[in-house]
Structure formats: C-alpha cells, structure tokens
C-alpha cells in the first residue's frame, strides 16, 4: 500500500487532524502528553459523544441526518430518572423505558423520512423541538420540576454508570469501544455496510438492486435516537440525577465529530475508524485545552478551523479517489 492509497482513505483527514491538534498543543500550549493521555475528562467526553456519533455516521453515510439526538439525550436521562427515581420502579423498567422512547422517536423519524420527501434535517428538527417540549412539559407535569434525583442499584451502576480502573474513567468508555467494534464490523465487513454505502451513493439504484432501502433507513434512525437515549440513561445513572436542560450543544458536537472523521455530508463516503479518531480529536480539542496554557475560549476557533480543513480534505480526497490513475499496472 503506497502513500497515495493511504491518503485516499476516508479516515486520513481525521488522523491528520489529530496529529495536528496534538502538535499544536505541544508546541504552543506546552502540554504534557503523559498527563493528557492519563486524564479521564476528555476520554469520558469522547465516549459520551462517540456512542451517538457511530449511528449518526451510519445515517450520514446513507445520506440522511438526525438532529433530534439533541433532545433524545435529555429524554433518555429524564425517562430513566422519572421511572426509577420519581416513581421508584425497578431500574430495569427505567432502562427499558429510556431505550424504548429512543426506539419510538427513531421509528417516527424513520417512517416520516421514507414516506415523505421532506429533507430529514427538517423532519428531525421538528422532532427535536417537539421532544424538547414533551420532556420539559412532561417532567413538570409528572414530577413538578425539571430536575429529578434517582438512586440506581449496584448492578445498574456497574454496567452503565460507574468509574473504572479505580479512577475517574467512566464505564461508558468500554461501551464506546465495544460499539465501535460492532459498528466497524457492520460498516466495513458485513453486506449491510455495503448497502448503506450504496444508499448514500445512489438511492434509486440501490432500490433497483433489491436493497431494502426503507427498512434500513428506519433502522438507522432507530439507531441514532436509541444511541442518544442510551447515553442520557448512562448519565442519569452515573450522576444519580437528570435535568431537562442540556443536549443542544451535543447535536453540533456529534455532527462535527462525524464530519471531522471524514464522512461526506452528501453521503456515500466515510469510515468508522475515521469517526472514532474524529471523536477523539474533537474531545481532545474541547477538553484537552485545559491541560495547555492556551485560554480555553480558543477551543471553538480550533474546532471551526479543523472542521473546515476536514471538509476540504475529504472533498479533495473524494476527487482524488474518483480519478484513480488508469495505468496503475502495465499490461
């Protein structure tokens, strides 16, 4: 594999961004890499957005987008807290409740996406705002407040919301790693990944080739919303409480991570490794800046620049990939 084939991979942009950011922090921020890599804050953050970024990446490769994830993180957290905290029902109901609200909203988004020609940005903008309303009004109605405490049993804590390795690393990191492996397998090794790329490349042709486009699209929407409510649930279990606020920033952070990871907004191109590295890079910029001498307000500027570079790079990689040399081998 020569250097050009490597540089044409969709993950290339994110790896270069990661190296660039680390170099920048070391040279201009005087960061101690050992201390940075030992720290939990950015890995915890990466895991939180990374778990949602994986299904969002699948969806974006297929050419759709889901911004209702912003409301689904607090929705998952509130559902968990209301069922297990306010009503003091067994934790298992809270977990099932949180996951099924995610699945339901995803199903709703997915059905609207395949039955109408409305862009999914608009559809999920609708469900985003609607779910924010439901979560806020619903928790006010049921509990009388916008913040609900809960106590989770030990088993739930140790599976979804605990600290591992005796320090401040959260257990969601392990979930993130496992899910990354699963998504990588689906995307790059199974036939389903092939189909998702095909949907993003040319939906009509994919349908003609007998690919169940609608069913896959609905499943992917269920994946994004459930992923988001899962993250919310883990958060509520970890911190023993849930608040209605929060989650709006996550939309952009997750989508930025996916784009920095080399996924084309137009669909048809991207990789799970890229998204994984993109998420890491994003988390290092946002949380790692605390380990540098740079004022943390500059972090957003770095993100913005990084995003533009990533988009530019994937665009040029895409062009290069499309015009692969014809005479690679003679004869």
């Amino acid at each position, binding site marked *: 594999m020569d250097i050009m084939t490597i540089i044409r991979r969709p993950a290339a942009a994110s790896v270069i961004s990661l190296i660039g950011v680390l170099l920048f922090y070391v040279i201009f921020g005087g960061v101690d890499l050992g201390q940075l890599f030992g720290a939990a804050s950015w890995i915890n953050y990466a895991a939180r957005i990374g778990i949602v970024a994986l299904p969002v990446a699948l969806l974006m490769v297929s050419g759709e987008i889901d911004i209702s994830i912003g409301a689904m993180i607090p929705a998952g957290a509130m559902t968990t807290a209301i069922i297990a905290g306010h009503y003091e029902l067994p934790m298992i109901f809270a977990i099932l409740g949180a996951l099924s609200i995610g699945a339901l909203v995803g199903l709703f988004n997915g059905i609207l996406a395949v039955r109408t020609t409305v862009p999914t940005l608009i559809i999920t903008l609708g469900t985003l705002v609607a779910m924010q309303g439901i979560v806020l009004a619903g928790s006010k109605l049921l509990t009388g407040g916008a913040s609900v405490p809960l106590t989770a049993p030990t088993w739930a804590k140790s599976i979804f919301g605990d600290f591992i390795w005796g320090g401040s690393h959260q257990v969601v990191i392990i979930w993130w790693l496992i899910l990354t492996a699963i998504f990588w397998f689906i995307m790059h*090794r*199974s*036939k389903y*990944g*092939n*189909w998702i*790329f*095909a949907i993003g*490349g*040319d939906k*009509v*042709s*994919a*349908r*003609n*080739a*007998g*690919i169940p486009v609608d069913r896959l699209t609905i499943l992917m929407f269920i994946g994004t919303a459930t992923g988001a409510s899962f993250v919310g649930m883990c958060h509520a279990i970890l911190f023993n409480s849930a608040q209605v606020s929060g989650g709006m920033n996550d939309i952009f952070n997750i989508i930025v991570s996916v784009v920095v990871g080399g996924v*084309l907004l137009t669909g*048809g*191109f991207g990789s799970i490794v890229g998204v994984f590295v993109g998420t890491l890079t994003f988390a290092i910029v946002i949380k790692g800046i605390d380990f540098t001498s740079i004022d943390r307000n500059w972090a957003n500027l770095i993100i913005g620049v990084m995003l533009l570079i990533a988009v530019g790079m994937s665009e040029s990689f*895409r062009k290069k*990939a*499309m*015009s*692969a040399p*014809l005479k*690679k*081998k003679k004869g």
Partner: protein
Amino acid sequence: MSDTPVIELCNVDKSFGPIDVLHEISLKVKAGEVLCLLGDNGAGKSTLIKTLAGVHAPTRGEVLVDGKSVKLSGPKDAQKRGIATVHQFGGTYPLMSVGRNFFMGEEPTKGFGPFKVFDRKKANRVAVEEVQKMGITRITDGDRLVGGLSGGERQSLAIARAVYFGARVLILDEPTAALGVKQAAHVLRIVNEAKKRGLAVIFITHQVMHAMTVGDHFAVLIRGAIAADFRKGERSREEITDLMAGGQNMAGLEASIEGYMETHNGHPPKVTTA
C-alpha cells in the same frame, strides 16, 4: 434456440388516471435477439421500460415470459424471472469499488452466523474476470473506485453484472445517450456480446445509428403507440429518423444542415432572429 419469445407484451395499455401513456403495445423478443425501441422524448419509452421491468402493472393486456402469461409484482419479481434493467447511469456507485459495485445486493460472504464477512477478494476477482470477459480489459483492479471509470466502462460494468447474475432479458435504457463516440462503440460491443451469449436484449435509444449497428428488430414508438415494426434492413436510416420525429421530414432537414456545413467550412447555418 427455441422459437418462443423470452418476453412478450400483448396488447398492453397503460394509463395513469385519465391519461393514456401506452396504447396497444405488442412486441416480443427471442433469445439472442436485439430489439431496438426507438422513440423521441415523451414517446412513452420510460413507461414501457417500467412496465417490462415490473415497476408498473399494465392497465390492460398481458406480459408473457417464456410464452406464459405472468403478473410481475414488482422489480424484484421481474429480476427473479431474469429481467434485468440497466438505466442510463448504470446503477453504479461512484464512491465504491468495482468489486463492491459488481456484487451490490448479492454479496459473497464467508464465515457463518452473525459473523458473515463480505468476501472482498472473491468479489474483486470475479468482478474483474467478468468485466474482462465482456471485453473491458482496462479494468484490472477490483479495488478501484467506479467513479474513476469512464461512462462507457461504468455502463459495461452494469451490463456485465446483469449477465453474471443470470439475466435472460436485458433492458438497456439509453445506454449510449450520454457517451462519446468511442465509449458508445464500447457499449455497443457489449450489447453484441450479450446477444452472442443468447440473451434477449431490449435496447432503448433515440440514436438511430446506434440502433442500426446492433439491432435485429426495430420498433418505433410515437405517442405511446408502436408506429412501425420492422426487421433489420427493411428501412433506411432516413426513414427511421422521419418516423421517430412523427412523419416530419427530419432526414431532409438534417441533410440540408449537413450540406450547408460542407459548403461553409463546417459552420452550422446561422439562426436569423425575427
């Protein structure tokens, strides 16, 4: 070859609500035969293709496969019966490799249970072999992205794919429309190759020259009805062009433009505005 047509339309009408798009269409194609369907834009070619491909059910009349009347329940059903449609832009995915494109929807896998893995090596090997057999020797690397191929090569890949997956009827929707002279020749060669292998080919085009190169049998479609039906050598190019344009003297016009260009150093006639 048996004499029963592989696919046949018998007095097919298709209307969408009050609008009649196809009117009493009857045509048949035998194995190893190329039927050229000629028609100007809006003549109902697309509707006819979609009826053949199982997308639309005919309002009246019947579709026969191997002499038996069938009801195609959808594109998948048509594919199962060996009716493959290759559209103008070929059903290929530019950002995916040749191997993955070739096996789209029919992926070869290895392993078992939930760990079935896409067999990239096999896919690439078979794809390159099959495409080369059809005469496209420039494709040697199954990992190459299809976006880097020429339009003709993409079209040929799609045809090779349909042939490999057991198509008996190949419906080609304007395969040469967007191609240059050389690329079009490429695709025409593949059409001949498919014919040699005993496929029934329905070749839709409005380029009379291309049709005459490969066709055995011609049908001209005008406003949803078959205006003329003839075999190879029965009509001249000029006659066919006139037919397609609905009886107007198109060939005469073409000839006069060519004549003008010859006497004016290749410049087309100036359009005088009133």
